[in-house]
């Protein structure tokens, strides 16, 4: 069953005079339970794809179906529930004046789901945090703990699809592994579909079944984790990316 079906997908940002063609026609099909990665340099449009798919940006054209249901740039609440997003910066993605309990109950309340203390405690334990954290403010948590809360917040509305925008790049290395493992465990448990955007090839190779390489708004190559491990690529840019990341790891 297809979870994400994207065809002929374009994103254009218009300002008064100029038009920037950010994403220039991509096709993407992701099956349920699959984890697909998108890699590329900064500004290649990979985050834009995520933000459009999840409903944050409206200026796209093309055909998009999420969980078998076609969606338009303007979203209804039911469409929103299908996909949730985890952001890059755990220090900016939680409201500084909302306690953790509130941060988790708000999505459930907005979607009309149960949001009592037991539900919040369950959501916290699912991401490996004790229930007492519900009474804390985000500034009382570390970056890794905040990212766990952000994941719990995305999962509490029980989406079928999770869009991950560089979920570990703001964390230090030891915490990165914990967060990635947490994400993998939740995926197996709930048969979630992930679309992961990163510029870190090792993260993508560790997590994903298939990897798309994006450059200047188009997918230029499709790789498997084994390809990356072996340093194999079809497109020169993808080859360049792998080589650069190997050099970076060696350094």
């Amino acid at each position, binding site marked *: 069953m297809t979870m994400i079906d994207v065809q002929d997908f374009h994103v254009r940002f218009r300002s008064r005079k100029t038009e920037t063609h950010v994403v220039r026609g991509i096709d993407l099909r992701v099956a349920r339970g699959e984890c697909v990665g998108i890699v590329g340099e900064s500004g290649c449009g990979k985050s834009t794809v995520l*933000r459009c798919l999840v409903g*944050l940006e409206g200026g796209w054209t093309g055909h998009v179906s999420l969980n078998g249901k076609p969606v338009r740039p303007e979203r209804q609440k039911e469409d*929103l529930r299908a996909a949730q997003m985890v952001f890059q910066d755990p220090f900016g993605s*939680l409201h500084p004046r909302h306690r953790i309990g509130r941060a988790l109950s708000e999505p459930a309340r907005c979607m009309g789901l149960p949001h009592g203390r037991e539900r919040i405690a369950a959501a916290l334990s699912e991401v490996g945090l004790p229930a007492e954290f519900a009474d804390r403010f985000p500034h009382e948590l570390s970056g890794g703990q905040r990212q766990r809360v952000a994941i719990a917040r995305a999962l509490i509305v029980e989406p079928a699809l999770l869009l991950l925008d560089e979920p570990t790049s703001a964390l230090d290395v030891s915490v990165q592994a914990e967060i990635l493992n947490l994400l993998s465990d939740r995926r197996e448990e709930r048969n979630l579909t992930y679309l992961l955007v990163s510029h870190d090839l090792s993260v993508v190779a560790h997590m994903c079944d298939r990897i798309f390489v994006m450059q200047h708004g188009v997918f230029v190559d499709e790789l498997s984790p084994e390809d990356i491990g072996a340093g194999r690529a079809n497109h020169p840019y993808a080859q360049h990316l792998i080589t650069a990341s190997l050099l970076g790891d060696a350094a």
Partner: protein
Amino acid sequence: MQDTFPLKTPTQTRMSGAGMALRRFYSDLRREPLGHAGFIVIMILILAAVFAPLLAPYPAARQSLGEALQSPSAQHWLGTDEFGRDILSRLIWGAQITMRTVLSVSAIVGPVGLMIGITAGYFGGRTDAILMRFTDVVLSFPSLVLALAFAAALGAGLNTAIIAISLTAWPPIARLARAEALVVRNTDYVAAARIYGASHLRLLLLYIAPMCVPSVVVRLTLNMATITLTAASLGFLGLGAQPPMPEWGAMISAGRRFMLDQWWVAVMPGFAILITSLAFNVLGDAMRDILDPRHTRG
């Protein structure tokens, strides 16, 4: 993952969020001598206003023509005016009028400015353009002139003065709130809230407004000095509170005639106005240092 976290035990018993914030705010304020002094002066004024009937040695309107224009003495600490009324008593009663004006104006202006500002900043585009041009138009009215027009239309009085000052005092608040909202609406936590389907109203009131409140409160406190002065000016011109109400500006206006020989009649209310607006100013400055992290002391 089954790893457990080293649990930090909370260092203090958890109070309600607001109580904790207030207590932290006060302990920060105590480290700012000037701001703390301003805070104490304002507190004294509020207490004086509330307990005026108990504190004032004489009723505000008690005339005693035999004692007219007496200099400060043990009986009348700040002297008496041309009708033999005790100036200290009138100042204490006058604190009620000043505090009522300041608090009423702030209570009107704060929410109105905040709502207009965050609505403009959050929605942007055409909404923003319309609301902000309207704000600019209002901003261009001098409040004293508008109050004159108002007094002419509705009759002079304290309530007219409050309405007139409120009408011209909200635009700076709205601009401030808009600037904050422009930043907050682009944050990831607002994006996350949009993805989980929070309504516009919910986003405005529960997500954006709380982030704008601290700077609005600071701005309001600084504004209170201006409000005190404007209210006194209106009283001085005879457009605010009417005699025999012991309004400070009106008292100066009455005392002007005796300025050279009986200086205390005009100077004492003048001092009251000076100290009050100064106190609001230094308190507002200290609050800005405490509440607004971008504003660091030089």
